[in-house]
Protein backbone atom coordinates (compact mmCIF):
# COMPACT_ATOMS: atom_id res chain seq x y z
CA UNK A 1 0.00 0.00 0.00
CA UNK A 2 2.73 2.37 1.06
CA UNK A 3 4.86 1.38 -1.90
CA UNK A 4 2.04 1.85 -4.38
CA UNK A 5 1.39 5.34 -3.15
CA UNK A 6 5.00 6.31 -3.43
CA UNK A 7 5.24 4.93 -6.97
CA UNK A 8 2.35 7.14 -8.04
CA UNK A 9 4.00 10.11 -6.48
CA UNK A 10 7.20 9.48 -8.41
CA UNK A 11 5.26 9.39 -11.68
CA UNK A 12 3.56 12.62 -10.72
CA UNK A 13 6.82 14.18 -9.68
CA UNK A 14 8.41 13.27 -13.00
CA UNK A 15 5.44 14.54 -15.03
CA UNK A 16 5.27 17.84 -13.20
CA UNK A 17 9.04 18.06 -13.61
CA UNK A 18 8.60 17.64 -17.36
CA UNK A 19 6.01 20.42 -17.38
CA UNK A 20 8.40 22.69 -15.51
CA UNK A 21 11.27 21.83 -17.84
CA UNK A 22 9.04 22.51 -20.87
CA UNK A 23 8.27 25.96 -19.63
CA UNK A 24 11.87 26.73 -18.69
CA UNK A 25 12.97 25.51 -22.11
CA UNK A 26 10.59 27.93 -23.81
CA UNK A 27 11.76 30.82 -21.67
CA UNK A 28 15.37 29.90 -22.40
CA UNK A 29 14.78 29.81 -26.16
CA UNK A 30 12.99 33.14 -26.02
CA UNK A 31 15.80 34.75 -24.04
CA UNK A 32 18.45 33.31 -26.40
CA UNK A 33 16.53 34.66 -29.36
CA UNK A 34 16.07 38.13 -27.93
CA UNK A 35 19.62 38.13 -26.54
CA UNK A 36 21.06 37.32 -29.95
CA UNK A 37 19.13 40.15 -31.59
CA UNK A 38 20.10 42.54 -28.82
CA UNK A 39 23.82 41.70 -28.84
CA UNK A 40 24.12 41.83 -32.62
CA UNK A 41 21.88 44.84 -33.02
CA UNK A 42 22.97 47.16 -30.26
CA UNK A 43 26.32 47.83 -31.96
CA UNK A 44 24.82 49.68 -34.90
CA UNK A 45 22.16 51.60 -33.01
CA UNK A 46 22.91 55.29 -32.86
CA UNK A 47 21.02 58.48 -33.47
CA UNK A 48 22.40 58.60 -37.01
CA UNK A 49 21.19 55.05 -37.64
CA UNK A 50 17.70 56.01 -36.57
CA UNK A 51 17.42 59.15 -38.71
CA UNK A 52 19.79 58.63 -41.65
CA UNK A 53 18.68 57.21 -44.94
CA UNK A 54 20.34 54.14 -46.51
CA UNK A 55 23.46 54.95 -48.49
CA UNK A 56 25.91 53.19 -50.77
CA UNK A 57 23.52 50.68 -52.29
CA UNK A 58 21.90 50.02 -48.89
CA UNK A 59 25.12 48.78 -47.30
CA UNK A 60 25.57 51.84 -45.09
CA UNK A 61 23.48 54.51 -43.48
CA UNK A 62 20.39 54.18 -41.37
CA UNK A 63 16.73 53.37 -41.39
CA UNK A 64 15.22 56.83 -40.98
CA UNK A 65 12.81 56.64 -43.95
CA UNK A 66 11.63 53.18 -42.86
CA UNK A 67 10.82 54.47 -39.37
CA UNK A 68 9.10 57.51 -40.88
CA UNK A 69 7.04 55.29 -43.17
CA UNK A 70 6.03 53.00 -40.30
CA UNK A 71 4.91 55.97 -38.21
CA UNK A 72 3.04 57.53 -41.13
CA UNK A 73 1.20 54.33 -42.06
CA UNK A 74 0.24 53.44 -38.49
CA UNK A 75 -0.86 57.02 -37.80
CA UNK A 76 -3.25 56.97 -40.75
CA UNK A 77 -4.31 53.44 -39.79
CA UNK A 78 -5.28 54.64 -36.31
CA UNK A 79 -7.24 57.54 -37.81
CA UNK A 80 -9.32 55.04 -39.80
CA UNK A 81 -9.56 52.11 -37.44
CA UNK A 82 -10.06 53.65 -34.01
CA UNK A 83 -13.14 55.84 -34.68
CA UNK A 84 -14.83 53.11 -36.71
CA UNK A 85 -13.95 50.42 -34.18
CA UNK A 86 -14.91 52.42 -31.10
CA UNK A 87 -18.21 53.64 -32.59
CA UNK A 88 -19.10 50.11 -33.70
CA UNK A 89 -18.36 48.80 -30.23
CA UNK A 90 -20.50 51.54 -28.66
CA UNK A 91 -23.34 50.56 -30.97
CA UNK A 92 -22.96 46.87 -30.20
CA UNK A 93 -22.67 47.30 -26.45
CA UNK A 94 -24.91 50.28 -25.69
CA UNK A 95 -27.58 50.49 -28.35
CA UNK A 96 -28.07 47.21 -30.16
CA UNK A 97 -30.20 44.54 -28.61
CA UNK A 98 -29.05 40.95 -28.79
CA UNK A 99 -30.57 40.17 -32.14
CA UNK A 100 -29.62 37.88 -34.99
CA UNK A 101 -28.04 40.86 -36.75
CA UNK A 102 -25.74 41.82 -33.88
CA UNK A 103 -24.78 38.21 -33.32
CA UNK A 104 -23.71 38.04 -36.96
CA UNK A 105 -21.57 41.15 -36.44
CA UNK A 106 -19.98 39.67 -33.34
CA UNK A 107 -19.28 36.31 -34.97
CA UNK A 108 -17.81 37.91 -38.08
CA UNK A 109 -15.57 40.16 -35.98
CA UNK A 110 -14.26 37.10 -34.15
CA UNK A 111 -13.71 35.31 -37.44
CA UNK A 112 -12.07 38.36 -39.00
CA UNK A 113 -9.32 38.06 -36.40
CA UNK A 114 -8.49 34.60 -37.74
CA UNK A 115 -8.27 35.52 -41.43
CA UNK A 116 -4.66 35.19 -42.68
CA UNK A 117 -3.01 38.58 -43.02
CA UNK A 118 -1.99 37.91 -46.62
CA UNK A 119 -5.70 37.65 -47.48
CA UNK A 120 -6.09 41.20 -46.21
CA UNK A 121 -3.39 42.12 -48.69
CA UNK A 122 -5.43 40.59 -51.50
CA UNK A 123 -8.48 42.45 -50.23
CA UNK A 124 -6.55 45.72 -50.16
CA UNK A 125 -5.41 45.19 -53.72
CA UNK A 126 -8.78 44.10 -55.07
CA UNK A 127 -10.97 46.52 -53.15
CA UNK A 128 -9.02 49.64 -52.19
CA UNK A 129 -6.61 49.93 -55.11
CA UNK A 130 -8.44 48.38 -58.05
CA UNK A 131 -12.02 49.25 -57.08
CA UNK A 132 -11.99 52.40 -54.93
CA UNK A 133 -8.72 53.83 -56.28
CA UNK A 134 -9.45 53.27 -59.96
CA UNK A 135 -12.94 54.73 -59.57
CA UNK A 136 -11.61 57.77 -57.71
CA UNK A 137 -9.19 58.35 -60.57
CA UNK A 138 -12.03 58.19 -63.06
CA UNK A 139 -14.29 60.51 -61.10
CA UNK A 140 -11.65 63.14 -60.37
CA UNK A 141 -9.77 62.68 -63.66
CA UNK A 142 -6.48 62.28 -61.82
CA UNK A 143 -4.87 59.81 -64.22
CA UNK A 144 -3.10 57.19 -62.17
CA UNK A 145 -3.00 58.77 -58.72
CA UNK A 146 -5.19 56.61 -56.49
CA UNK A 147 -5.37 53.43 -58.54
CA UNK A 148 -1.91 52.22 -57.59
CA UNK A 149 -0.20 50.87 -54.46
CA UNK A 150 0.25 53.74 -52.01
CA UNK A 151 0.57 54.67 -48.36
CA UNK A 152 -3.14 55.44 -48.12
CA UNK A 153 -4.23 51.98 -49.20
CA UNK A 154 -1.67 50.24 -47.01
CA UNK A 155 -3.03 52.07 -43.98
CA UNK A 156 -6.69 51.49 -44.84
CA UNK A 157 -5.97 47.78 -45.33
CA UNK A 158 -4.12 47.59 -42.03
CA UNK A 159 -7.02 49.47 -40.46
CA UNK A 160 -9.42 46.70 -41.51
CA UNK A 161 -6.90 44.16 -40.20
CA UNK A 162 -6.69 45.72 -36.73
CA UNK A 163 -10.41 46.54 -36.55
CA UNK A 164 -11.23 43.39 -34.52
CA UNK A 165 -8.56 44.30 -31.94
CA UNK A 166 -10.05 47.77 -31.44
CA UNK A 167 -13.65 46.52 -31.34
CA UNK A 168 -13.00 43.61 -28.98
CA UNK A 169 -11.03 45.64 -26.44
CA UNK A 170 -13.53 48.51 -26.56
CA UNK A 171 -16.38 46.05 -26.04
CA UNK A 172 -14.54 44.63 -23.04
CA UNK A 173 -13.98 48.11 -21.63
CA UNK A 174 -17.61 49.20 -22.12
CA UNK A 175 -18.86 45.93 -20.71
CA UNK A 176 -16.87 46.38 -17.52
CA UNK A 177 -18.57 49.67 -16.62
CA UNK A 178 -21.04 48.65 -13.90
CA UNK A 179 -24.73 48.87 -14.73
CA UNK A 180 -25.36 50.71 -11.47
CA UNK A 181 -23.38 53.70 -12.78
CA UNK A 182 -25.57 53.90 -15.84
CA UNK A 183 -28.68 53.57 -13.70
CA UNK A 184 -27.47 56.34 -11.41
CA UNK A 185 -26.94 58.56 -14.43
CA UNK A 186 -30.42 57.81 -15.81
CA UNK A 187 -31.79 58.43 -12.34
CA UNK A 188 -30.36 61.93 -12.40
CA UNK A 189 -32.29 62.54 -15.59
CA UNK A 190 -29.49 62.10 -18.10
CA UNK A 191 -30.33 60.83 -21.54
CA UNK A 192 -28.68 57.80 -23.12
CA UNK A 193 -26.10 59.84 -25.01
CA UNK A 194 -25.33 61.99 -21.97
CA UNK A 195 -24.82 58.81 -19.96
CA UNK A 196 -22.49 57.34 -22.57
CA UNK A 197 -20.56 60.59 -22.98
CA UNK A 198 -20.23 61.53 -19.32
CA UNK A 199 -20.33 58.25 -17.44
CA UNK A 200 -19.48 55.26 -19.62
CA UNK A 201 -16.78 56.58 -21.97
CA UNK A 202 -14.60 58.28 -19.32
CA UNK A 203 -14.49 55.03 -17.37
CA UNK A 204 -13.84 52.94 -20.47
CA UNK A 205 -11.10 55.25 -21.76
CA UNK A 206 -8.10 53.21 -20.47
CA UNK A 207 -9.55 50.06 -22.05
CA UNK A 208 -10.05 51.81 -25.38
CA UNK A 209 -6.51 53.17 -25.21
CA UNK A 210 -5.19 49.66 -24.55
CA UNK A 211 -6.89 48.43 -27.70
CA UNK A 212 -5.50 51.33 -29.71
CA UNK A 213 -1.94 50.65 -28.55
CA UNK A 214 -2.26 46.92 -29.28
CA UNK A 215 -3.60 47.80 -32.73
CA UNK A 216 -0.61 50.07 -33.42
CA UNK A 217 1.80 47.37 -32.33
CA UNK A 218 0.10 44.79 -34.52
CA UNK A 219 0.00 47.15 -37.50
CA UNK A 220 3.64 48.16 -37.17
CA UNK A 221 4.72 44.52 -37.12
CA UNK A 222 2.66 43.30 -40.08
CA UNK A 223 4.52 42.71 -43.31
CA UNK A 224 2.50 40.29 -45.42
CA UNK A 225 -0.47 42.55 -46.31
CA UNK A 226 1.67 45.52 -47.36
CA UNK A 227 4.00 43.51 -49.60
CA UNK A 228 2.07 44.56 -52.67
CA UNK A 229 0.35 47.66 -51.30
CA UNK A 230 3.14 50.14 -51.82
CA UNK A 231 6.02 49.18 -49.55
CA UNK A 232 9.26 49.99 -51.34
CA UNK A 233 12.82 48.71 -51.10
CA UNK A 234 14.34 52.16 -51.31
CA UNK A 235 12.95 55.61 -51.98
CA UNK A 236 15.09 58.71 -52.40
CA UNK A 237 12.42 60.97 -50.91
CA UNK A 238 10.11 60.73 -47.94
CA UNK A 239 6.42 60.45 -48.79
CA UNK A 240 5.85 64.07 -47.85
CA UNK A 241 4.18 66.90 -49.71
CA UNK A 242 3.49 70.52 -48.83
CA UNK A 243 -0.12 71.20 -48.07
CA UNK A 244 -0.80 74.82 -48.89
CA UNK A 245 -3.74 76.90 -47.77
CA UNK A 246 -3.17 80.24 -49.44
CA UNK A 247 0.42 81.22 -48.74
CA UNK A 248 0.72 79.11 -45.66
CA UNK A 249 2.34 75.77 -46.35
CA UNK A 250 2.97 72.85 -43.99
CA UNK A 251 4.64 69.57 -44.87
CA UNK A 252 2.16 66.70 -44.66
CA UNK A 253 2.27 62.96 -45.21
CA UNK A 254 1.49 62.36 -48.84
CA UNK A 255 -0.82 59.36 -48.84
CA UNK A 256 -0.59 58.75 -52.59
CA UNK A 257 3.11 57.88 -52.59
CA UNK A 258 4.94 54.67 -51.89
CA UNK A 259 6.74 54.30 -48.60
CA UNK A 260 9.46 52.40 -46.76
CA UNK A 261 8.35 50.25 -43.85
CA UNK A 262 10.48 48.92 -41.02
CA UNK A 263 9.09 45.38 -41.04
CA UNK A 264 9.29 45.22 -44.84
CA UNK A 265 12.80 46.65 -44.69
CA UNK A 266 13.96 43.72 -42.52
CA UNK A 267 12.38 41.21 -44.90
CA UNK A 268 13.75 42.71 -48.09
CA UNK A 269 17.23 43.34 -46.69
CA UNK A 270 17.47 39.77 -45.42
CA UNK A 271 16.25 38.12 -48.58
CA UNK A 272 16.83 40.36 -51.58
CA UNK A 273 19.55 42.89 -50.89
CA UNK A 274 22.63 42.74 -53.11
CA UNK A 275 24.92 41.58 -50.32
CA UNK A 276 22.97 40.05 -47.43
CA UNK A 277 26.04 39.21 -45.35
CA UNK A 278 27.52 42.68 -45.61
CA UNK A 279 24.25 44.30 -44.54
CA UNK A 280 23.71 41.83 -41.69
CA UNK A 281 24.50 44.40 -38.94
CA UNK A 282 21.91 46.77 -40.46
CA UNK A 283 19.38 43.92 -40.53
CA UNK A 284 20.01 43.15 -36.88
CA UNK A 285 19.80 46.84 -36.04
CA UNK A 286 16.45 47.23 -37.82
CA UNK A 287 15.15 44.09 -36.12
CA UNK A 288 16.17 45.39 -32.71
CA UNK A 289 14.43 48.70 -33.38
CA UNK A 290 11.23 46.92 -34.47
CA UNK A 291 11.28 44.58 -31.46
CA UNK A 292 11.91 47.41 -29.00
CA UNK A 293 9.10 49.40 -30.62
CA UNK A 294 6.55 46.58 -30.40
CA UNK A 295 7.65 45.58 -26.89
CA UNK A 296 7.36 49.14 -25.60
CA UNK A 297 3.88 49.43 -27.11
CA UNK A 298 2.78 46.05 -25.76
CA UNK A 299 4.20 46.66 -22.29
CA UNK A 300 2.40 50.01 -22.17
CA UNK A 301 -0.82 48.29 -23.17
CA UNK A 302 -0.34 45.55 -20.57
CA UNK A 303 0.35 48.06 -17.77
CA UNK A 304 -2.66 50.13 -18.83
CA UNK A 305 -4.91 47.11 -18.76
CA UNK A 306 -3.52 45.91 -15.45
CA UNK A 307 -4.25 49.27 -13.84
CA UNK A 308 -7.64 49.42 -15.48
CA UNK A 309 -8.64 46.01 -14.16
CA UNK A 310 -7.29 46.84 -10.72
CA UNK A 311 -9.29 50.07 -10.71
CA UNK A 312 -12.46 48.22 -11.67
CA UNK A 313 -11.79 45.65 -8.99
CA UNK A 314 -11.81 48.44 -6.46
CA UNK A 315 -15.09 49.94 -7.69
Amino acid sequence: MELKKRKKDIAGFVSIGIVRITFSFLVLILLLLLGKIFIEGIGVISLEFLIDEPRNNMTEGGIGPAIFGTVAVTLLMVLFAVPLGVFSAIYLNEYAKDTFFTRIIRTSINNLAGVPSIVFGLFGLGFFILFIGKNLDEVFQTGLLFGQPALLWASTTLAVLVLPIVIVSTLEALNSVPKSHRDASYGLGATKWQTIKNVVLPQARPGILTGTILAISRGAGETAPILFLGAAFFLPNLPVADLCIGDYCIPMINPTEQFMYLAYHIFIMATQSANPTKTLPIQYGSTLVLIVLTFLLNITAIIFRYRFRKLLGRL
Partner: protein
Amino acid sequence: MEDKEFFQKAVNSKYAKKIGKHTRLKESLIKIFFAVNGTMALIFIILIFVFLFKEGFKALDHIGLLDFLYLDRPDASGNIERVFQWYPTSEEPRYSLIPLLIGTFLTAFPATIISTLLGVGAGIYLSEVANPKFKEFLKPMIELFAGIPTVVLGFIMLVVGASFFNDILHPANRLNAFVASIGLSFVIIPIIASLTEDALHSIPNDLRMASYGLGATKWQTISKVILPAAFSGVSASILLGFGRAIGETMIVLMCAGNAANLTSNIFLSVRTMTATIAAEMGEVSQGSDHYYSLFFIGIVLFTITFFLNLIAEIIINKMRKKNTF
Protein backbone atom coordinates in the same frame (compact mmCIF):
# COMPACT_ATOMS: atom_id res chain seq x y z
CA MET B 1 -50.89 54.18 -7.13
CA GLU B 2 -49.42 57.38 -5.87
CA ASP B 3 -46.23 56.66 -7.82
CA LYS B 4 -48.16 56.27 -11.02
CA GLU B 5 -49.95 59.58 -10.55
CA PHE B 6 -46.69 61.31 -9.78
CA PHE B 7 -45.13 59.77 -12.88
CA GLN B 8 -48.04 60.94 -15.05
CA LYS B 9 -47.71 64.42 -13.63
CA ALA B 10 -44.02 64.46 -14.34
CA VAL B 11 -44.47 63.30 -17.91
CA ASN B 12 -47.19 65.87 -18.59
CA SER B 13 -45.38 68.79 -16.99
CA LYS B 14 -44.18 71.54 -19.30
CA TYR B 15 -40.53 70.80 -18.43
CA ALA B 16 -40.74 67.21 -19.54
CA LYS B 17 -42.25 68.11 -22.89
CA LYS B 18 -39.71 70.84 -23.48
CA ILE B 19 -36.78 68.48 -22.96
CA GLY B 20 -38.38 65.55 -24.69
CA LYS B 21 -38.99 67.11 -28.07
CA HIS B 22 -35.57 68.63 -28.44
CA THR B 23 -33.44 65.77 -27.17
CA ARG B 24 -35.39 62.94 -28.68
CA LEU B 25 -34.33 63.95 -32.18
CA LYS B 26 -30.72 64.40 -31.12
CA GLU B 27 -30.69 61.08 -29.30
CA SER B 28 -32.07 59.19 -32.25
CA LEU B 29 -29.62 60.88 -34.63
CA ILE B 30 -26.76 59.80 -32.37
CA LYS B 31 -28.11 56.28 -32.29
CA ILE B 32 -28.30 56.23 -36.08
CA PHE B 33 -24.70 57.49 -36.25
CA PHE B 34 -23.45 54.61 -34.12
CA ALA B 35 -25.61 52.10 -35.98
CA VAL B 36 -24.11 53.29 -39.28
CA ASN B 37 -20.63 52.69 -37.90
CA GLY B 38 -21.53 49.24 -36.66
CA THR B 39 -23.01 48.39 -40.04
CA MET B 40 -19.92 49.73 -41.79
CA ALA B 41 -17.72 47.38 -39.80
CA LEU B 42 -19.91 44.52 -40.96
CA ILE B 43 -19.85 45.79 -44.55
CA PHE B 44 -16.05 45.74 -44.57
CA ILE B 45 -16.10 42.15 -43.44
CA ILE B 46 -18.58 41.24 -46.16
CA LEU B 47 -16.51 43.17 -48.71
CA ILE B 48 -13.42 41.10 -47.90
CA PHE B 49 -15.46 38.04 -48.70
CA VAL B 50 -17.02 39.55 -51.84
CA PHE B 51 -13.85 40.93 -53.41
CA LEU B 52 -11.78 37.87 -52.66
CA PHE B 53 -14.36 35.59 -54.25
CA LYS B 54 -15.17 37.98 -57.10
CA GLU B 55 -11.55 38.16 -58.24
CA GLY B 56 -10.76 34.55 -57.43
CA PHE B 57 -13.65 33.03 -59.36
CA LYS B 58 -12.57 34.94 -62.47
CA ALA B 59 -9.72 32.44 -62.57
CA LEU B 60 -12.27 29.78 -63.44
CA ASP B 61 -13.09 31.57 -66.72
CA HIS B 62 -9.88 30.30 -68.28
CA ILE B 63 -8.61 27.66 -65.91
CA GLY B 64 -10.77 24.64 -65.18
CA LEU B 65 -11.34 23.49 -61.66
CA LEU B 66 -9.46 20.30 -62.50
CA ASP B 67 -6.48 22.30 -63.74
CA PHE B 68 -6.04 23.47 -60.18
CA LEU B 69 -5.47 19.83 -59.27
CA TYR B 70 -3.39 18.41 -62.13
CA LEU B 71 -2.54 18.69 -65.80
CA ASP B 72 -2.53 15.79 -68.25
CA ARG B 73 0.11 16.38 -70.87
CA PRO B 74 1.95 14.22 -73.38
CA ASP B 75 5.62 13.66 -72.67
CA ALA B 76 8.35 13.23 -75.30
CA SER B 77 7.25 9.74 -76.34
CA GLY B 78 3.58 10.70 -76.63
CA ASN B 79 2.37 9.05 -73.45
CA ILE B 80 -0.08 11.08 -71.41
CA GLU B 81 1.54 12.08 -68.18
CA ARG B 82 -0.31 13.49 -65.20
CA VAL B 83 1.68 16.35 -63.64
CA PHE B 84 1.11 18.14 -60.38
CA GLN B 85 3.06 21.34 -60.81
CA TRP B 86 2.76 25.02 -60.07
CA TYR B 87 4.40 26.82 -63.00
CA PRO B 88 1.98 29.65 -63.84
CA THR B 89 4.53 31.65 -65.82
CA SER B 90 5.82 28.99 -68.17
CA GLU B 91 4.89 28.70 -71.88
CA GLU B 92 2.44 26.01 -70.96
CA PRO B 93 1.20 27.22 -67.59
CA ARG B 94 0.51 24.64 -64.90
CA TYR B 95 -1.73 25.66 -62.05
CA SER B 96 -1.84 22.63 -59.78
CA LEU B 97 -2.36 23.66 -56.17
CA ILE B 98 -1.31 20.23 -54.92
CA PRO B 99 2.38 21.11 -54.32
CA LEU B 100 1.33 24.31 -52.56
CA LEU B 101 -1.18 22.48 -50.37
CA ILE B 102 1.46 19.88 -49.55
CA GLY B 103 3.95 22.63 -48.75
CA THR B 104 1.43 24.34 -46.50
CA PHE B 105 0.60 21.18 -44.58
CA LEU B 106 4.21 20.04 -44.44
CA THR B 107 5.08 23.24 -42.58
CA ALA B 108 1.86 23.64 -40.58
CA PHE B 109 1.47 20.05 -39.31
CA PRO B 110 4.88 19.61 -37.70
CA ALA B 111 4.63 23.13 -36.29
CA THR B 112 1.27 22.29 -34.72
CA ILE B 113 2.59 19.04 -33.25
CA ILE B 114 5.65 20.74 -31.73
CA SER B 115 3.53 23.61 -30.45
CA THR B 116 0.92 21.29 -28.99
CA LEU B 117 3.53 19.45 -26.93
CA LEU B 118 5.29 22.59 -25.74
CA GLY B 119 2.27 24.93 -25.66
CA VAL B 120 -0.04 22.62 -23.70
CA GLY B 121 2.84 21.92 -21.31
CA ALA B 122 3.38 25.63 -20.82
CA GLY B 123 -0.37 26.12 -20.33
CA ILE B 124 -0.48 23.40 -17.65
CA TYR B 125 2.51 24.99 -15.95
CA LEU B 126 0.90 28.44 -15.95
CA SER B 127 -2.49 27.29 -14.72
CA GLU B 128 -1.70 24.45 -12.32
CA VAL B 129 1.95 24.40 -11.35
CA ALA B 130 3.30 27.95 -11.25
CA ASN B 131 3.21 30.02 -8.11
CA PRO B 132 0.19 32.38 -8.49
CA LYS B 133 2.33 35.45 -7.84
CA PHE B 134 4.90 34.36 -10.40
CA LYS B 135 2.05 33.71 -12.82
CA GLU B 136 0.95 37.35 -12.66
CA PHE B 137 4.32 38.12 -14.17
CA LEU B 138 4.46 35.19 -16.62
CA LYS B 139 1.12 35.72 -18.35
CA PRO B 140 2.10 39.13 -19.74
CA MET B 141 5.41 37.56 -20.82
CA ILE B 142 3.47 35.08 -22.97
CA GLU B 143 1.58 38.01 -24.45
CA LEU B 144 4.84 39.77 -25.27
CA PHE B 145 6.08 36.57 -26.87
CA ALA B 146 2.93 36.47 -28.98
CA GLY B 147 3.46 40.11 -29.97
CA ILE B 148 6.84 39.56 -31.65
CA PRO B 149 6.36 40.49 -35.32
CA THR B 150 6.54 37.40 -37.51
CA VAL B 151 9.08 39.03 -39.80
CA VAL B 152 11.47 39.11 -36.84
CA LEU B 153 10.99 35.39 -36.25
CA GLY B 154 11.45 34.72 -39.95
CA PHE B 155 14.63 36.79 -39.94
CA ILE B 156 16.14 35.04 -36.93
CA MET B 157 15.30 31.60 -38.32
CA LEU B 158 16.84 32.62 -41.63
CA VAL B 159 20.15 33.91 -40.27
CA VAL B 160 20.56 31.76 -37.14
CA GLY B 161 18.09 28.84 -37.12
CA ALA B 162 18.73 27.63 -40.67
CA SER B 163 22.50 27.46 -40.14
CA PHE B 164 22.04 25.78 -36.76
CA PHE B 165 19.86 23.00 -38.16
CA ASN B 166 22.05 22.77 -41.25
CA ASP B 167 25.04 21.96 -39.05
CA ILE B 168 23.37 19.32 -36.93
CA LEU B 169 20.96 17.67 -39.37
CA HIS B 170 22.61 18.23 -42.79
CA PRO B 171 19.32 18.52 -44.72
CA ALA B 172 19.21 18.39 -48.52
CA ASN B 173 18.17 22.04 -48.71
CA ARG B 174 19.39 24.62 -46.21
CA LEU B 175 16.00 26.31 -46.19
CA ASN B 176 13.34 23.65 -45.80
CA ALA B 177 9.94 22.83 -44.37
CA PHE B 178 11.46 21.79 -41.06
CA VAL B 179 13.17 25.14 -40.43
CA ALA B 180 9.94 26.92 -41.36
CA SER B 181 7.89 24.74 -39.02
CA ILE B 182 10.25 25.51 -36.12
CA GLY B 183 9.78 29.21 -36.93
CA LEU B 184 6.00 28.76 -37.07
CA SER B 185 6.08 27.08 -33.65
CA PHE B 186 7.28 30.36 -32.15
CA VAL B 187 4.05 31.95 -33.36
CA ILE B 188 1.71 29.15 -32.30
CA ILE B 189 3.15 28.18 -28.91
CA PRO B 190 2.00 31.42 -27.22
CA ILE B 191 -1.47 31.03 -28.77
CA ILE B 192 -1.89 27.44 -27.59
CA ALA B 193 -0.28 28.16 -24.21
CA SER B 194 -2.51 31.11 -23.36
CA LEU B 195 -5.73 29.48 -24.62
CA THR B 196 -4.88 26.25 -22.78
CA GLU B 197 -4.28 28.27 -19.64
CA ASP B 198 -7.70 29.93 -20.11
CA ALA B 199 -9.37 26.55 -20.58
CA LEU B 200 -7.72 25.00 -17.51
CA HIS B 201 -8.35 28.09 -15.45
CA SER B 202 -12.06 28.03 -16.25
CA ILE B 203 -12.46 24.57 -14.64
CA PRO B 204 -14.24 25.14 -11.32
CA ASN B 205 -12.01 24.76 -8.26
CA ASP B 206 -14.57 22.37 -6.73
CA LEU B 207 -13.37 19.67 -9.12
CA ARG B 208 -9.79 20.04 -7.92
CA MET B 209 -10.87 19.99 -4.30
CA ALA B 210 -13.05 16.92 -4.83
CA SER B 211 -10.16 15.13 -6.50
CA TYR B 212 -7.75 15.98 -3.68
CA GLY B 213 -10.39 14.95 -1.20
CA LEU B 214 -10.49 11.49 -2.77
CA GLY B 215 -6.77 11.18 -2.14
CA ALA B 216 -5.47 11.96 -5.64
CA THR B 217 -2.05 13.51 -6.02
CA LYS B 218 -1.50 16.76 -7.86
CA TRP B 219 -0.51 15.10 -11.11
CA GLN B 220 -3.39 12.62 -10.90
CA THR B 221 -5.72 15.58 -10.49
CA ILE B 222 -4.22 17.33 -13.48
CA SER B 223 -4.11 14.33 -15.80
CA LYS B 224 -7.31 12.53 -14.76
CA VAL B 225 -9.62 15.40 -13.81
CA ILE B 226 -8.54 18.81 -15.09
CA LEU B 227 -7.23 17.89 -18.55
CA PRO B 228 -10.24 15.70 -19.49
CA ALA B 229 -12.60 18.42 -18.26
CA ALA B 230 -10.77 21.03 -20.31
CA PHE B 231 -10.31 18.76 -23.32
CA SER B 232 -12.59 20.73 -25.63
CA GLY B 233 -10.93 24.02 -24.77
CA VAL B 234 -7.47 22.63 -25.33
CA SER B 235 -8.45 21.10 -28.67
CA ALA B 236 -9.99 24.41 -29.74
CA SER B 237 -6.68 26.12 -28.97
CA ILE B 238 -4.83 23.57 -31.09
CA LEU B 239 -7.25 24.15 -33.99
CA LEU B 240 -6.76 27.91 -33.74
CA GLY B 241 -3.01 27.39 -33.67
CA PHE B 242 -3.21 25.18 -36.75
CA GLY B 243 -5.28 27.80 -38.56
CA ARG B 244 -2.70 30.41 -37.68
CA ALA B 245 0.11 28.18 -38.96
CA ILE B 246 -1.65 27.73 -42.30
CA GLY B 247 -2.21 31.48 -42.68
CA GLU B 248 1.22 32.64 -41.59
CA THR B 249 3.19 34.23 -44.41
CA MET B 250 6.48 35.85 -43.52
CA ILE B 251 8.15 32.91 -41.78
CA VAL B 252 7.43 30.43 -44.55
CA LEU B 253 8.31 33.00 -47.19
CA MET B 254 11.73 33.52 -45.63
CA CYS B 255 12.56 30.02 -44.35
CA ALA B 256 10.79 27.35 -46.40
CA GLY B 257 12.95 27.71 -49.50
CA ASN B 258 10.09 28.56 -51.89
CA ALA B 259 10.56 25.70 -54.32
CA ALA B 260 7.23 24.07 -55.18
CA ASN B 261 8.45 20.52 -54.58
CA LEU B 262 6.02 17.65 -54.58
CA THR B 263 7.46 15.86 -51.60
CA SER B 264 6.76 14.37 -48.24
CA ASN B 265 10.34 14.96 -47.12
CA ILE B 266 10.34 17.60 -44.44
CA PHE B 267 13.99 18.45 -45.14
CA LEU B 268 13.33 19.66 -48.68
CA SER B 269 12.35 23.14 -49.75
CA VAL B 270 8.63 23.66 -50.13
CA ARG B 271 6.39 26.51 -51.18
CA THR B 272 3.23 27.29 -49.23
CA MET B 273 0.04 28.95 -50.48
CA THR B 274 0.69 32.12 -48.49
CA ALA B 275 4.28 32.41 -49.71
CA THR B 276 3.12 31.93 -53.30
CA ILE B 277 0.72 34.85 -53.05
CA ALA B 278 3.31 37.00 -51.30
CA ALA B 279 6.12 36.24 -53.72
CA GLU B 280 4.20 36.38 -57.00
CA MET B 281 1.54 39.07 -56.49
CA GLY B 282 4.10 41.87 -56.78
CA GLU B 283 5.27 40.87 -60.26
CA VAL B 284 2.12 39.51 -61.86
CA SER B 285 0.35 41.57 -64.51
CA GLN B 286 -3.11 42.55 -63.36
CA GLY B 287 -5.97 40.77 -65.07
CA SER B 288 -3.92 37.80 -66.23
CA ASP B 289 -4.85 34.21 -65.45
CA HIS B 290 -1.91 34.03 -63.09
CA TYR B 291 -3.21 37.07 -61.21
CA TYR B 292 -6.68 35.58 -60.77
CA SER B 293 -5.27 32.21 -59.81
CA LEU B 294 -3.41 33.90 -56.92
CA PHE B 295 -6.77 35.22 -55.72
CA PHE B 296 -8.10 31.69 -56.11
CA ILE B 297 -5.35 30.50 -53.74
CA GLY B 298 -6.57 33.25 -51.41
CA ILE B 299 -10.07 31.72 -51.52
CA VAL B 300 -8.70 28.27 -50.66
CA LEU B 301 -6.70 29.77 -47.79
CA PHE B 302 -9.63 31.80 -46.53
CA THR B 303 -11.98 28.81 -46.66
CA ILE B 304 -9.63 26.48 -44.76
CA THR B 305 -8.88 28.98 -41.99
CA PHE B 306 -12.50 30.11 -41.82
CA PHE B 307 -13.74 26.61 -41.10
CA LEU B 308 -10.95 25.89 -38.62
CA ASN B 309 -11.84 29.08 -36.74
CA LEU B 310 -15.55 28.35 -36.93
CA ILE B 311 -15.11 24.86 -35.46
CA ALA B 312 -12.87 26.24 -32.72
CA GLU B 313 -15.41 28.95 -31.90
CA ILE B 314 -18.26 26.43 -31.71
CA ILE B 315 -16.18 24.25 -29.37
CA ILE B 316 -15.32 27.24 -27.16
CA ASN B 317 -18.95 28.39 -27.00
CA LYS B 318 -20.08 24.89 -26.04
CA MET B 319 -17.38 24.78 -23.38
CA ARG B 320 -18.55 28.11 -21.93
CA LYS B 321 -22.11 26.88 -21.68
CA LYS B 322 -21.00 23.63 -20.08
CA ASN B 323 -18.81 25.30 -17.49
CA THR B 324 -21.46 27.69 -16.23
CA PHE B 325 -23.74 25.11 -14.69
